[in-house]
């Protein structure tokens, strides 16, 4: 499954994270922090999924912050995609009826 991660910097300096156009998390300008657990949870990494990162900063707010954060997501998804590519072949072989807990 294709998953698009949109990182959007709003004018009010809040940074929103969308997964397939659905807003999943918002990092406000007042408290610029997030945990590693949250990142894993937001993205919902699953075997076989393919991720694409898109960043949007129309107002060019805190460009450096946005660039670093986007680069982080690019790095993560690039590596996760390569993992998924390896696993896809294996999963294709699994019986469709098997449920994965």
């Amino acid at each position, binding site marked *: 499954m294709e998953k698009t991660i949109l990182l959007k910097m709003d004018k009010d300096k809040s*940074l929103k994270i969308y997964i397939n156009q659905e807003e999943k998390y918002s*990092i406000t*300008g*007042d*408290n*610029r*922090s*997030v*945990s*590693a*657990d949250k*990142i*894993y949870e937001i993205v919902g*990494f*699953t*075997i076989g999924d393919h991720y694409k990162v898109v960043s949007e900063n129309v107002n060019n707010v*805190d460009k*450096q*912050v946005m660039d*670093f*954060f986007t*680069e*982080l997501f690019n*790095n*993560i998804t690039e*590596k*996760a995609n390569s*993992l*998924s590519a390896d*696993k896809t072949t*294996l*999963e294709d072989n*699994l*019986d469709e009826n*098997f449920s*994965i*807990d």
Partner: protein
Amino acid sequence: MGNTQNSVLKFDLHIHSKASEYKESDGIVTQSTKENISVLLSKLNENKVALFSITDHNRFDSDLYDSLIQALNAPDNPYPFIKGILAGIEFDVKLDATMEKCHIIAIFNAKNDLDKLKHIEFVINENLLTEKDAAYQKDKFWHVLREIGLDTILIASQSKDIHNHNGKHNALSDSVADVEEIIKMGYINALEFQKPKVEGILINNLTTFSLPIPLFSGSDCHDWYHYPFHDAINQNKEFHHSKAKILPTFKGLLLAITSPETRFDCRENRNKIFFDGIYLGDEFIPIVNGVNAIIGENGSGKTTLLKLINGKIGDSYVKKLICDNKLKIVFEIESSKIKYIQQGDIINKFNAQSLFKDEETNNFNELDNSAFIKAYTNFAKDLKCAINQNISSERIIYGLSKYTIAYDESLQNKCYYIDISCQKNFEKVNNPHTQPLKDVTDLIAKVEELSKDDYFQVYGEQINNLCKELNTIKTFIESKNNVTAFEANVKNIIHGCIKDYLRKVKQKSSSKDQEILEYNSKKQFFIDSIVEAIKLSFKNSTWPTIPNILRGESTSLKSGFNFNREALYNGVSMIDCFYSKMFINQYNTIEKLKTINTNDKLKEAIRGCTSIPDIEEKWNENLQKFISESTKTNDYITDGTNQQIGNTLGELSLSYYKYYTQDSDDWNVLIVDQPEDNISNNNISKNLISYFNYIRNEKQLIFVTHNPLLVVNLDADNIIFVRNNKGTLTTEQGCLEFEDEHTNILEIVANNMDGGKETIEKRLKVYGKNNTA
């Protein structure tokens, strides 16, 4: 005549001649005269009778004997099968005045000496019975024998059950009330029967006897023209000659009587590969296909002869003796056909605990200790894990006091960059599916291996189904494992990327921001520590359960023995041993181990550990010692009834010989240097001799011995007496009864073996106290 007993001879000690005529009114002995001895000798030769006696009713014809002896001594006599004649008489004796008479054959050791023969005749004529039905009273009979004055063997006729006392048959039981008693007293040396069915009855009668009593057949031939039958009319078609492995002499017969189990009913040796003999210069020393005993003083060269026979002539003193005496073996036998037990072999193997398990004969099965090793390795691992968890809990819970954080308003400001906190152990994901996946994969591999085994071919379908089921399970576990492994991988990636991110952020951040990040990081660590401490306070360490008692034993069955091997841990709990090897004495229960909550305490608890960095090494070292100790094996042997055979040197030596002699392997010659070593005389008599007897007709036995029991009681077929006079070897050789003008084997045994005389006397007691060989 050879001087070793290497063949089985037929004999007949009950033949009449014309001298019996006074009791035989119908003329059946009329033609059994000196003039017709060629008739008798031809018939005996035809029947391959090697030893015989003319035993007339209460008469002795020395002329007839003289003629027979001369005929047999003639250099060109046409009777090659006939080897000897013994003087004898069939007496009518009334042993009990109130009962009937019986027939007793007396065989005399007259050594074919005409004077002795004439003396027998003289004594008989002096005490002659003239009436047909007359009999000697018991005292008179002993008087006659004493007057004759020769060594005598007495054979009583017994043509029916020994408990039948109805008279009419001239049987021993017609003349005495208790046949067993008179045999036990030594008056009678053997019983004579004529019909096979009577032999069966007598064997049955005598089964409870403690002493062996030989049973002879006698033809009772009266008319030589009809030998082996009684006469022209009375023909016992079932008659068969007795056979014995003896020299055809009185002494041969005497030794047969004193050891019927080794002399009667013998068969020819089935062994086809054996040593014939040794050359000592030009002299040939025969070695028989039976029991050969080499005797002599210490240093006489006995062992050298054994080594020569066995081809082990590497030692210089052996080489010299062989060379100086021109010793040579007739032909060599390949080593695989020989079993050679050197002097000291058994004690050396006993000390090395390698009896029964040398390279050639590894009778004990190897033990599979993997289950035990796995159980205790896992136990130790889980135990260490629990102790470490205890230590960690303690350290974390009581270490919280070291962690402080002061609230700083100025550091509550936002950062320019996004701060990403990464909880401790974020990337560590416990995958509970890894081990089950490995286990089920191993199981499938094992089942697939079994499916290729011939033994399991009959269960092919079931095994295939089992494989399918296991593969289904494996697929489920594998998918779960993949999901969890993927999660771990992704979290690891996220963790790594966050670290890169934070590094870059740090480089670009202002000093104030860096201070805020540091504060946040410290705060995160503080929170993590508290959370972890809370978790640990709620969680008890998981202490492993003590491993089950396991079996570690194997049994291998061979030649009637069970070769058992058992590990120390077999069937017993090893937990106390584990604690004592791993820890100092006070830590001998799980409860005690639960008190270890610091590395210092752990260091002190582990046996031999002196510093905290050594904990891991000492732990593993102690565990290995424990496993090594616990998997040590004890080997023991039981017999077929699972009765344990002792572990002393003597008991095991005896078992070693029993094992060898029951061994059905393809070998032919047993060579032993002093088999008596370490074995009591009682055990030699009761056991070792019977082991050797068991194989004497199937193998060739050659041994050196100083023990007369192995010569006299084993009834060696060939005794080789070796002398060494300043490096020059001489030998005398023959079976026990052999004697000529130079050599008398019984005398050699009596004079040259410790206890030899007593052993011979003890054997001859069976024959009668008043008789001497």
